[in-house]
């Protein structure tokens, strides 16, 4: 049975193309949520195995969404990969993986190979 991935990102075009790539080989079942305010409800209904979460979003930002998931007993164990185009001091170089407070952070743009191996690693561990 394929693993379920929930993408929470307000960039509709990006999420559409990301889903096409992830679903291509039939490895994953992908759900998109472009409105962060609905993220918790969507996640509760979908029960993903992994979440790809954008950081800068209108309404609730990625941090707010992650906190809501942490407070939900059924979602708190679900691993989260943060995908962000945010440029900050000490930004990780494109393609590298950083760990921050138990959350994996990948900078946008991200190559599919990097993203796939990151997803595989995390799913294997959990």
């Amino acid at each position, binding site marked *: 049975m394929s693993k379920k991935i929930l993408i929470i990102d307000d*960039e509709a*075009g*990006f999420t*559409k*193309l*990301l889903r*096409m*790539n992830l679903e*291509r080989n039939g490895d994953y079942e992908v759900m998109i949520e472009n409105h962060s305010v609905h993220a918790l409800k969507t996640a509760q209904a979908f029960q993903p195995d992994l979440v790809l979460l954008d950081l*800068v*979003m*209108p*309404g609730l*930002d990625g941090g707010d969404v992650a906190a809501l998931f942490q407070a939900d007993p059924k979602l708190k164990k679900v691993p989260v990969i943060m*995908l962000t*185009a*945010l*440029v*900050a001091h000490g930004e990780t170089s494109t393609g590298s993986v950083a760990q921050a407070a138990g959350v994996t952070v990948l*900078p*946008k*743009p*991200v*190559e*599919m190979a990097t993203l796939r191996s990151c997803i595989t690693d995390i799913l294997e561990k959990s």
Partner: protein
Amino acid sequence: MSAPEGAKTQRLSSKAKSAPPEQILHDLLAESPSILASIVDNLPVALFVKDADHDFRVVLWNKKQEDITTIPREKALGRTDFHMFSQESAQYFRQVDEAVVRRGKLFEIPEEIISTPGGGDIWLKTTKAPVFDTTRNRTFVIGISEDITPQIRVREQLKELNTHLTLANQQLQETQLQLIQAEKMESVGRLAAGVAHEVKNPLALLLMGVEYLASGITENDPNLPEILTEMRDAIARADRIIRGLVDYSSSRQLSLESHELLPLVENALLLTRHEVRKGNINVEVIFEKDLPPVFIDLAKMEQIFVNLIINAVHAMEGRPRPNLEIYAYATRIPEVERDEGARTARHLRSGDEVVIVEIRDNGSGISEENMQKIFDPFFTTKATGVGTGLGLSVVRKIIELHRGRISLRNRVSGGVAVSLTLKVAPTVQDELDKGPFKKKQ
């Protein structure tokens, strides 16, 4: 032997009581012919007479003329200008003298420069007139010159001072423009992170598209049209943002042209999109229908909007339901706002057609104390590193360069409204009305 001086005066004054003035002068000349020479010599203006029938040789040369030209009478009498002045000056004097005789009329030379044998140049205001001696059938040219060198020197000094002032003013304006540019580069730095974020998102999409295409596609892949459309849109979006930033940071000169305000405001919102989204701010842009174009420097005005939008975003940090409203309408400056002290062409006048743009936030507002200092350079309420404090003083400077107005007020409902008054761009008809073909009323 003549009577003592006192006695003569006594006798003249007793005559003066009865005789008409012309008789007095006649008597005086008859009694003392040298008095005429004395009068001529003591005139406060230079006087000379030339004999037109004898090569314009000098026949009279008074004291003042000696002083001005530094040529003593004995060296002038019986000589022509060619003996006394440079060839060029003499040639010019001769032409004028001949013209005076030919026309038989008075001739005025408001300013002429002559080089004296003493070495200095002097400026004269000269009047020449023909004098016809009918009894002896001779023609003379009489000239009266006034030394206007001091006035000319003052005028030259004023001209020089004026040049210095113009130059200083130019330098001041250049410095102001440099300051505006420096402030702009500072805000480019502030915007850079946001702009990078806005460009990285379409790049991320493009990479997703490339990855999909690169991993092998079939001819009838149903996703293909959608992927290509999304990729094309992403390229256009990234291009728009980068072009906006480049336009924003370029242009050091002030070039006023007719522009629509709405696209400018939309571009400023695009550049600040990241900050606005991060702050969860609801943006409303309400522009009156058919708003006339305004006379502005596009890049500088965009700088103002970026600045004011960022200020509003900062003012609304942590506030509930942050709302940014950009409201614009056209009106005329009402009579009550008439400012007599500022009624120059550089300022707005009552009756001028203007566009008023208000940038309204519902943030924390400004205290009365801070309101007084809000346009001071380096005044800021922001934390160190967040703002240099040049923002609003530069905004005001730019508005002044546009001959517009800026004002701030606390809104009754909370928050601040910044109001910009900008002159409507002149229409073709306005230009025609102002031009040389203006119809007489």
